[in-house]
């Protein structure tokens, strides 16, 4: 399997994209974001600790470059930075092969990454944050309009349960696309049965989530002295619900998080442009990936507006300390999940 061999290098990730032939550009971006030293592929939980520490240390780095974070823990060399600063190397601009939805997805990802980076800064620039947030809203609105015209394609019976996680491509975050589905409003914080929340959670990332994510960023800009948790940003799903090849990713159950701490969950969806992904055994690739590390930086707001009155949103945010500040809890939660999975697998396979 040809992975992105040069994930450790400091080259611009867009130029990296061009080099590898097999995998799509977007894939590369996603992979690069997820990747870290090789052991991450298998043993992601251990990474989370080092990752969050590295993340903390990178705050200064953000000051140096206005560059958004590329791979965690990998400091871009100044020479590379300057080299790339001097020129224009975006695949978006130079490639004519990117379809409109793909371009849109790229832009959205960039926006969200930037917003996240700005959150890490001591004092984010209000002007830039507002401009980026508006761009995100605009894209979101566009996607919403598109999906409201498309027939809803819900992958209902695909056992969106944690048990089947390893092998199943869940509907992931095409939540906003599945506008016909009421669960759009629900969130993974429902503490109902074990299965339901996951299913709901998978569909949970909706426009409201995105909006509330943006809102909380803006709110935090107002309260600069607060040490609010970085609210979570979730890249929106792409708008082609036909193929269930999206990879649903790790979800956290609300029960644990209501212990009063944080939640680390995120739904992260890779563009499911089928033409790119069909010839690859996606299940194989992503079976082992735990993108919870990615998620920890892009985690969802813990509570959805549908559940809480808006006035308490800020309060709520405060009660959820950052992923960074309490990595151990995250690990615990993830470990719980995995051990549950293991247990279930044992039952299914072992007996």
């Amino acid at each position, binding site marked *: 399997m040809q992975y992105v061999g040069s994930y450790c290098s400091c080259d611009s990730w867009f130029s990296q994209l061009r080099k590898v032939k097999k995998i799509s550009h977007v894939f590369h971006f996603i992979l690069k974001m997820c990747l870290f030293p090789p052991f991450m592929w298998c043993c992601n939980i251990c990474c989370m600790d080092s990752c969050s520490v590295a993340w903390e240390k990178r705050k200064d780095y953000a000051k140096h470059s206005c560059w958004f974070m590329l791979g965690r823990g990998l400091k871009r060399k100044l020479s590379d930075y300057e080299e*790339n600063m001097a020129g224009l190397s975006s695949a*978006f601009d130079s490639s004519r092969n990117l379809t409109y939805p793909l371009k849109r997805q790229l832009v959205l990802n960039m926006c969200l990454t930037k917003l996240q980076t700005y959150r890490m800064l*001591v*004092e984010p620039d209000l002007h830039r944050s507002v401009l980026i947030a508006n761009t995100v809203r605009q894209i979101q609105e566009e996607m919403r309009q598109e999906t409201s015209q498309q027939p809803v394609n819900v992958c209902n019976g695909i056992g969106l349960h944690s048990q089947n996680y390893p092998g199943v491509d869940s509907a992931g975050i095409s939540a906003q696309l599945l506008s016909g589905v009421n669960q759009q409003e629900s969130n993974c914080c429902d503490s109902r049965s074990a299965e339901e929340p996951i299913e709901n959670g998978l569909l949970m990332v909706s426009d409201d989530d995105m909006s509330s994510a943006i809102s909380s960023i803006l709110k935090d800009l107002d309260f600069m002295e607060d040490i609010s948790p970085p609210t979570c940003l979730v890249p929106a799903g792409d708008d082609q619900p036909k193929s269930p090849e999206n990879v649903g990713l790790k979800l956290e159950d609300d029960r644990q998080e209501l212990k009063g701490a944080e939640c680390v969950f995120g739904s992260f969806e890779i563009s499911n442009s089928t033409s790119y992904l069909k010839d690859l055994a996606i299940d194989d690739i992503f079976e082992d990936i735990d993108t919870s590390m990615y998620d920890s930086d892009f985690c969802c707001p813990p509570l959805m507006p549908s559940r809480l009155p808006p006035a308490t949103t800020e309060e709520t945010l405060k009660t959820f300390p950052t992923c960074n500040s309490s990595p151990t809890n995250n690990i615990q939660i993830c470990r719980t999940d995995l051990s549950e999975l293991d247990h279930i697998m044992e039952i299914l396979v072992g007996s």
Partner: protein
Amino acid sequence: MAGAGGGNDIQWCFSQVKGAVDDDVAEADIISTVEFNHSGELLATGDKGGRVVIFQQEQENKTQAHSRGEYNVYSTFQSHEPEFDYLKSLEIEEKINKIRWLPQKNAAQFLLSTNDKTIKLWKISERDKRPEGYNLKEEDGRYRDPTTVTTLRVPVFRPMDLMVEASPRRIFANAHTYHINSISINSDYETYLSADDLRINLWHLEITDRSFNIVDIKPANMEELTEVITAAEFHPNSCNTFVYSSSKGTIRLCDMRASALCDRHSKLFEEPEDPSNRSFFSEIISSISDVKFSHSGRYMMTRDYLSVKIWDLNMENRPVETYQVHEYLRSKLCSLYENDCIFDKFECCWNGSDSVVMTGSYNNFFRMFDRNTKRDITLEASRENNKPRTVLKPRKVCASGKRKKDEISVDSLDFNKKILHTAWHPKENIIAVATTNNLYIFQDKMN
């Protein structure tokens, strides 16, 4: 005089360059603002380290009729120091965001300089005489024993080496929650405004403990924030009128006589978007980075990322003139967004007669547009044309296709070298152009 155009009519020559030669730019030396005073004799620059350097034009040399006086350092002082906001645990940068001169009323010069949070009024005065012949003090300042004094004399002023002193006369602090982006002195010369991202305050130059809030666009719920103030300026003639621009590409003209809080504009200047140019970045590139009234007060100029627009104050629905600064970047917007260049805030300026406008670009290029002849020119600020009176060669960027000789392709532009700040002498064809850490002065060729 200053009526000449920017196209073929005028030839710009290198005059001087100020600043360090080496490529290693110390961050504190990055020039953040450039401003001529009302007579043009003084040129002030502010940098990221909080310092203000003022250059003075030499009196024209009668023997050297070919060139106008050179600008030499007149005064240097530390205007702002880095501060720490203990309440928010934030460092307040000392970078000088804007300098504005007051018109000269007596021998001393006054200017306002501002960083993100605090505005200061500085008095720059000369001292070229000093009193000598005190009865009770020696020349070096030691006190004499009164018993040794046998005769009395009247102290007299004797000439001394010129000393320029800068002293802070007023400090206007604690009025802005967000970062100040503009200051503008009113035509009454008694009041001025300061604008941050969400609010504009009106000050009296004599009163430091109080300011009036005249514009507040902060929503009750910050989550609904979609627009910020990017620049503001008083009208040059009407002391009740000012404009402010927003990140959405709109300019609002307000009349302070209408109400105390000018949240409702009197005029709204906005150009409808061109649907053929729509992209994901349309809003970002429409954000106005600078707004300047013409000297006459009839027009105003706005700078957004790709263009300069000239508006007639009497027409709100579209600008009367639009000049493309670097249209070849339109297809590169995503890359520019990726490296944050799309957020660069370019300034613009008018010449003394309002016939030519100038603004900066990348690769140390700057552009001039002649409003009468409709010609434009691209010049480069570089140390390569170092000799005084060397005529600058026009530059051209090749957008696509075959690159002609002497043209530069878009991909080889250096986006680290940007000219954000430019200034034009109010009466003559002398321009000051700031690259990252150097200040270039160009003059027109005098024959």
